[in-house]
């Protein structure tokens, strides 16, 4: 996992026709779009997949019109929410228990925080990033992680703890009044 380029750079490269940049954009935001649709709005199966593809189609088609490229994340989040709401409202055969835009702000804010943590993973060593991703995001067992990375399964728990500690350090209190910003690479 390499340190991601700033969104504005990614947008500029996409606009220039760099397909690899588009792939990076999908890799960076695929989980976010998926999580908003499934965890935020409870969409499943074909509905979630349709929203996922619709969001990226809209982003691709309208990338040239994005006035503030560094606002890419907010734009993707907003586009995803709109697509989810459209999808839910389009289900004429379903009775809605709540208005679709009633998804708690905290839920969406939590996914934003999760994406910040996800981005910070790239500042850890590749091994740490992969161990944490496999354990927490992919729900793999110690044995599976050990087999995959060629490490003794008995050492995975301690590595997870150590890597989580390093990730936490990125967010540790540094300034007198609060928490620090993530600016460094931890190996």
């Amino acid at each position, binding site marked *: 996992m390499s340190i991601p380029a700033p969104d504005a750079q990614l947008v500029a490269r996409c606009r220039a026709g760099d397909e690899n940049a588009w792939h990076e954009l999908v890799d960076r935001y695929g989980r976010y779009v998926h999580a908003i649709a499934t965890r935020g709005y409870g969409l499943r199966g074909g509905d979630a997949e349709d929203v*996922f593809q619709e969001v990226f189609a809209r982003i691709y088609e309208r990338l040239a019109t994005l006035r503030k490229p560094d606002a890419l994340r907010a734009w993707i989040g907003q586009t995803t929410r709109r697509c989810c709401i459209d999808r839910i409202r389009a289900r004429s055969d379903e009775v809605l228990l709540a208005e679709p835009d009633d998804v708690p702000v905290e839920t969406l804010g939590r996914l934003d925080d999760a994406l910040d943590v*996800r981005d910070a993973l790239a500042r850890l060593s590749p091994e740490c990033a992969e161990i944490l991703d496999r354990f927490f995001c992919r729900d793999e067992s110690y044995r599976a992680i050990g087999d995959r990375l060629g490490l003794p399964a008995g050492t995975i728990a301690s590595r997870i703890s150590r890597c989580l500690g390093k990730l*936490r350090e990125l967010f540790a209190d540094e300034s007198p009044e609060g928490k620090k910003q993530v600016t460094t690479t931890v190996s």
Partner: protein
Amino acid sequence: MSKRFDHDEEGIAELLRQLPPAPADWVAAAKQLPAARAGLDALVARAEADVELRRRVVAELDAALQSEGIEPEERVVEELRRRLDA
């Protein structure tokens, strides 16, 4: 990144759990958008320049897309139909 965090290690672990990977085939399809778009543009351009090809494409939208290596998803088929109807 300028956001400030109050999360301890357990909180960070919980946030990591919030973003499991999207299904690989969904991601792969989204990554193919530029190639699919280029293929669609080329197909429309050829159809607009060739009446017989246009007739065949309109008659068999799915097959025309597949022959260009484009997955005939509903959204893509509708776009092709719209562009050739215009």
